[in-house]
């Protein structure tokens, strides 16, 4: 066995160790430990991606007992790509909000923040790489608790309320996933994904247990949809993203919800079987809620007067896009959805981090009226916010354009779902443009009133470099999208 095959397991264990050691350290050393280990994990995952792109997927047995007795990991080019990308966004988000952490979080609790970050990344990697449903559930638990901690580490009334709401909603989702896994185990007798898929294929031929299978699919998809804030279950989202400290908001919006969506995609392909899922009624439910989310998320964002909450509501709309792509029920739709996961992860964290810079030069106030002219007062943050907005609206050259193009292309080949997709895509783009362009125009309107501080590149070097890196990631995704789409396509082929 090639040594590269060990890398997914090693990266998960490294992240867990990062969390464990951080709990006994001071904040600063914990931060550096986490950064170094994150870079190591990033390199390991990038190498894994390259290896998988050349040699195809592989299965890694955790221990000496092969499946279906022991635990297994599975890596393909799609998993590798996701893991690498998540590590990049994690490092950038962590460093983008690091100076804000000092004002908002008790200095004695900084090391706990890095514990949460380390364990969160390990659980995300495990959700990506796992080949076993129960392992997925265990790491969903870690992910949920870590996300709660990230919300409430900034201790004020609103974040604690938001954390409680997140906890309640998220636990309902977890319970549904657990029920789903129980039912699947009951009718198939396995927990390992590939064995379940064989059994389900045999069951479909034999025609046994159709009702439990349908209910299990429904519970798994709705449970994961609640956890990733699909439209009617999004009530916890604006508070959680709007009031937590900025690194947390960036990580929660761009990684935590995406981890669950990726797990759902993996379950669709590796557990249920794509064709069975595409013919079940659940896919239409996801499709319709996705469409509704695209409209209502944007409408709520337009009504919002707080820039952070506006970006949070925009997440609801973007999650709607992803579920719409999954709900199309074709391979092209799925490719578009996965590409949009990358786009949204890169752009939303950029928006959160840059909006923080803009509010910093506006007297810590987040209402639009105070943001007038903020783009001139903090040039880097203003440019970054503009880039993020343009990308979310879908202007060519940036990542958002490619994902919208892919969605439209995927819709054209569908007879039944083409019209709704194209219409809602059009409406949603206009709504996106309304609230994002409104903000961009607002921050570039000259302001002659009370003097606010002006910040330059040299005032916050790390922050500015992080923003520039974010912009580069966005433009790279927008310009060199072909190799990424090709990787995603090959990864989906490897799933089967």
């Amino acid at each position, binding site marked *: 066995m090639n040594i590269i095959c060990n890398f997914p397991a090693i990266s998960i264990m490294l992240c867990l*160790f990062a969390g464990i050691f951080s709990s006994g350290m001071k904040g600063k050393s914990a931060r550096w430990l986490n950064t170094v280990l994150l870079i190591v994990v990033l390199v390991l995952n990038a190498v894994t991606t390259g290896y998988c792109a050349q040699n195809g997927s592989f299965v890694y047995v955790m221990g000496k007992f092969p499946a279906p007795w022991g635990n297994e990991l599975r890596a393909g080019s799609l998993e590798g790509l996701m893991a690498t990308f998540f590590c990049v966004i994690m490092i950038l988000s962590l460093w983008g909000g690091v100076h804000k952490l000092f004002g908002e979080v008790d200095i*004695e609790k900084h090391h706990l923040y890095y514990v949460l970050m380390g*364990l969160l990344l390990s659980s995300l990697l495990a959700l990506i790489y796992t080949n076993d449903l129960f392992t997925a559930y265990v790491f969903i638990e870690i992910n949920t608790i870590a996300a709660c901690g990230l919300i409430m580490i900034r201790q004020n009334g609103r974040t604690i309320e938001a954390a409680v709401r997140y906890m309640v909603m998220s636990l309902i989702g977890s319970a549904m996933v657990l029920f789903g896994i129980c039912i699947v185990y009951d*009718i198939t*007798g396995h927990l390992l994904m590939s064995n379940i898929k064989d059994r389900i294929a045999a069951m479909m031929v034999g025609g046994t247990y159709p*009702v439990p299978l349908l209910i299990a699919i429904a519970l798994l998809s709705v449970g994961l949809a609640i956890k990733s804030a699909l439209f009617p279950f999004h009530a916890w989202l604006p508070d959680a993203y709007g009031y937590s400290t900025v690194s947390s908001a960036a990580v929660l919006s761009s990684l935590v919800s995406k981890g669950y969506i990726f797990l759902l995609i993996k379950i669709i392909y590796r557990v249920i079987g794509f064709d069975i899922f595409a013919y079940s009624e659940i896919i239409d439910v996801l499709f319709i809620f996705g469409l509704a989310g695209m409209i209502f998320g944007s409408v709520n964002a337009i009504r919002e007067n707080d820039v952070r909450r506006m970006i949070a509501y925009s997440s609801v709309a973007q999650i709607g896009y992803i579920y719409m792509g999954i709900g199309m029920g074709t391979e092209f739709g799925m490719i578009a959805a996965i590409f949009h996961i990358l786009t949204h992860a890169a752009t939303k964290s950029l928006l959160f981090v840059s909006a923080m810079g803009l509010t910093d030069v506006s007297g810590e106030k987040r209402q639009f009226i105070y943001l007038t002219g903020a783009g001139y007062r903090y040039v880097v943050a203003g440019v970054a916010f503009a880039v993020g907005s343009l990308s979310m609206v879908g202007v060519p050259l940036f990542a958002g354009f490619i994902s919208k193009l892919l969605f439209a292309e995927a819709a054209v080949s569908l007879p039944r779902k083409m019209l709704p997709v194209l219409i809602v895509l059009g409406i949603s783009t206009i709504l996106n443009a309304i609230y994002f362009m409104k903000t961009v125009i607002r921050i570039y309107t000259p302001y002659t009133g009370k003097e606010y501080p002006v910040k330059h590149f040299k005032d916050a070097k790390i922050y500015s470099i992080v923003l520039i890196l974010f912009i580069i990631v966005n433009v790279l995704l927008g310009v060199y999208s072909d190799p990424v789409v090709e990787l995603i396509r090959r990864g989906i082929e490897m799933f089967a």
Partner: protein
Amino acid sequence: MSRRKTDEEYSRTKTYKFFRWLSGVKDPYIDSLELQPQEEKKESEEVILEHLHDEELALEKVYDVSHNRFVNVFERVYKLVAALFCVLMLVGLLMCVSFLPENGSADTVRSNVVVDRYIENGLEETGAVNIVSGMILTYRAFDTFGETNVLFIATCCVMIMLMMDEKLLEKAEKQNDRRFEPKDDVILRLVASFLCPIIFIFAIYIMLNGHLSPGGGFSGGAVLGAGMILYVNAFGFKKTQRFFNEQIYKVAKITALCMYGLIGSYFYITGANGIANHIPLGIPGHILSSGIILPINVAVGLEVACTMYAFYALFRRGGL
């Protein structure tokens, strides 16, 4: 009457105290174990009425409850929809259960190769007489490591929420009504001084015998944690901190998790790459047997005990 001891010495002996109690001169529970009454908060009826009135006014002002039809309708519809949703969910799941394979019959899909190998080859492959331990700590060791980390991160979150500075702690202890709680409870102390050693020894027995008999790290750790909670209740935090303070907690937690992590990593990597690992399985039934299960059980037990005690201490006092 001739006494060897002087009056002063005699007054310190148990005999003297016993006769003093017998004759009813002094009740030993006074000053040592008594509930001091809380000062009653005096609120006249007018003040209470005023508060109620204020609350009503505030609600009226903020939500305009009595005139706001939307709020009224929304509340009713919300309750109705919630109830309907629960009923629907209940019906759906119950319907699903009726379609599931019958529990306990021999020919269900669940009794397949997986279960067969666990039962038939479990003893031989893991060296554990207790098949359950063998399964969760050898075949599925990675899941259990994840589960242990769930406990770890749960304590971290409670710490974020409730942990206070030492200075704040002292201040808080003066302010809240915990000082009225009975301290130095003689009965509890006596019982605890009997029970705690037994509980600790029993917990260690459960942990170390996890591969031989029912039990293991999770249950042993829970017993150990319960023993420590009993100890802290009987003797107070000051005495407990002599052997279990924040530093020791950190060291114990990190050692336990690292031990599990390192053993686990070694096991995964050697197993996956087909390298022979050097952990002997031993003779089944002996205390030193079954490879990685024994050290992992100890590690898990330590982590669970730390978690239980930390939860209790954080909720009760806001610090370890």
